[in-house]
């Protein structure tokens, strides 16, 4: 009995070890890569031991030239800023549009309610290009291509259904009787919404905002097709380090780290809501 227990424990530890090596190995490798100089990066076989340098980070942020290696013009800060602008604007617009819709879908019963709700959801399950390609043509005609406002509008497809569904779940979690109590206490529905419902879903809203921001930040396909030189986002920028004529692994790694670290920090704040968010509120984790 005892020995088999021990055996199972060892097996468990081995299993977890294997999985987490697989899960974290690539990130650690990229982090290491971002600290390698241009020779170490392309060393074959790859180097595990090297002298760390920040030259990749310098190259992509302030454009400092490293020895013998051509660097891109440091567009990276611009991409970063672009993404920041578009993702923030997207979240703000979604929040303005979505909060009331979520509340209304959570609290009131009206005709077509479930149909409307499912239509929102169905965009989550549609192939992105199905909407983006025609949108591209519409944008070309209206001149919205490569504009912040155009991208912000298009990004609603990423964040709005998500925000509505998850927030709806949070509103549904408020016991109905609490709102009824406030009605009886003499408040209009608007007063109840402002004084009771909204404060109670505050943590939910915070989580939804952060997750929406991350999703917008991570998006690639929208900005690839609908964006352009002016509005190029960070994901597209990172892809740009790998071209036909040159491959800048080290700078790509550094750009990746800069792109990823802020959102990982954000994600850790809302990790308790992540399952709920990723399943559109289906699992209340």
């Amino acid at each position, binding site marked *: 009995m005892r020995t088999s227990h021990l055996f199972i424990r060892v097996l468990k530890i081995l*299993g*977890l070890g294997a999985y987490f090596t697989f*899960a974290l190995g*690539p*990130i650690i*490798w*990229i982090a290491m890569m971002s600290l390698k100089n241009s020779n170490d990066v392309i060393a*074959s*076989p*790859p180097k595990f031991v090297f002298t760390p340098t920040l030259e990749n980070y310098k190259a992509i942020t302030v454009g400092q030239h490293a020895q013998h290696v051509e660097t891109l013009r440091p567009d990276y800060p611009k991409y970063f800023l672009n993404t920041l602008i578009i993702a923030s604007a997207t979240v703000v617009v979604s929040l303005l*549009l*979505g909060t*009331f819709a979520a*509340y*209304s*879908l*959570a609290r*009131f*019963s*009206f005709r077509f309610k479930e149909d*409307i709700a499912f239509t929102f959801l*169905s*965009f989550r*399950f*549609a*192939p*992105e*290009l*199905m*909407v983006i*390609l*025609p*949108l591209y*043509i519409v944008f070309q005609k209206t001149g919205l291509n490569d504009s912040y406002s155009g991208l912000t509008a298009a990004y*609603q*497809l990423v964040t*709005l259904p998500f925000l509505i569904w998850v927030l709806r*779940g949070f509103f549904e979690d408020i016991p109905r009787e609490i709102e009824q109590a406030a009605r009886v206490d003499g408040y209009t*529905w608007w007063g109840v919404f402002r004084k009771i419902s909204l404060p109670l879903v505050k943590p939910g809203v915070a989580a939804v905002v952060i997750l929406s921001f991350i999703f917008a*930040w*991570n998006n*690639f396909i929208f900005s690839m*097709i609908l964006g352009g030189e002016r509005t190029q986002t960070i994901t597209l920028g990172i*892809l740009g380090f*790998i071209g036909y004529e040159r491959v800048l*692994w080290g700078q*790509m*790694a550094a750009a*990746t780290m800069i*792109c*990823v670290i802020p*959102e990982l920090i954000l*994600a850790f704040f809302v*990790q308790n809501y*992540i*399952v709920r968010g*990723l399943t559109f509120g*289906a*699992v*209340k984790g």
Partner: protein
Amino acid sequence: MTGYALRTQSPNPPHRSLPYLLTLPALLALIGILYPFVLGVYYTFTNYILTEPGNIRFVGLTNYIEIFKTLDFWKAFSLTFVFAGSVVIIELALGLGVALLLKDAFPGVRILRSLLIIPMMIPPIVSALMWKVILLPTDQGVLNHILSFVRFPPIAWLGDSATALLSLIIIDVWIYSPFAILIFLAGLQSLPKEPYEAAKVDGASGWFMFRKLTLPLLTPCIVLVTLFRLIDSLKVFDIIYATTKGGPAGATVTLHIQSYFEAIRWFRMGRGMVYLFVLWFLCFIFSKALSRLWTKVLMR
């Protein structure tokens, strides 16, 4: 508390029009999205060529018929399903397995659970690039280098049509298995404790309990993971675009990628939209069926 959401009917609103008024802005945004969607469906019936925007002709079902006759379509079609099927099965198994290992408390388990979310929070396109580096052919790639310690000959991974799809599956599993793990973990943690204690007192073995209690109780989780992962992997785009771009030699061309080639690379908007419409239709059917199944298993 962990649990599943069930939608319940709600009583009447203060004013009949209020709910519509509140939903209206979002609904308008929705219509803004629906318009291009409808436009896209219309394009499938035209010979729209991107370079000749002035010359759009209605051609009926010609695009569909032509495409269904090509081998390319059916190759992309089956490739899409092979990819999605393998990914879903591997992620379900891996997800349940790792979740079972992470279920019980032990020192450090909280840290491990938080580290889990990392791959999911990184932009998929960036994850794919990271893996492209790791899977570099010859000894330059770190994976090949590590494998060489156990006398494994270097593999071209993404560069070889024999292993390209497998490489993509590895990348997808890397990104999304945490999703399955987290859902299974939430499911396992919300399992009622008492039936297990009752089974223990009744004298059941661990395997017996897993088969008779755990697996049936996790059905909602299994359906949910399948729903999200199946749909998302049917419409996979980012990771293929970042790594193989469909290559080598068309070994990784899925419906989504093919539609991109048709519409953007070869300017054949009409044909591209047909691919997309087929893909959309598949996603729609599966999402509808699985979400219905999910409500059903929730009602049990």
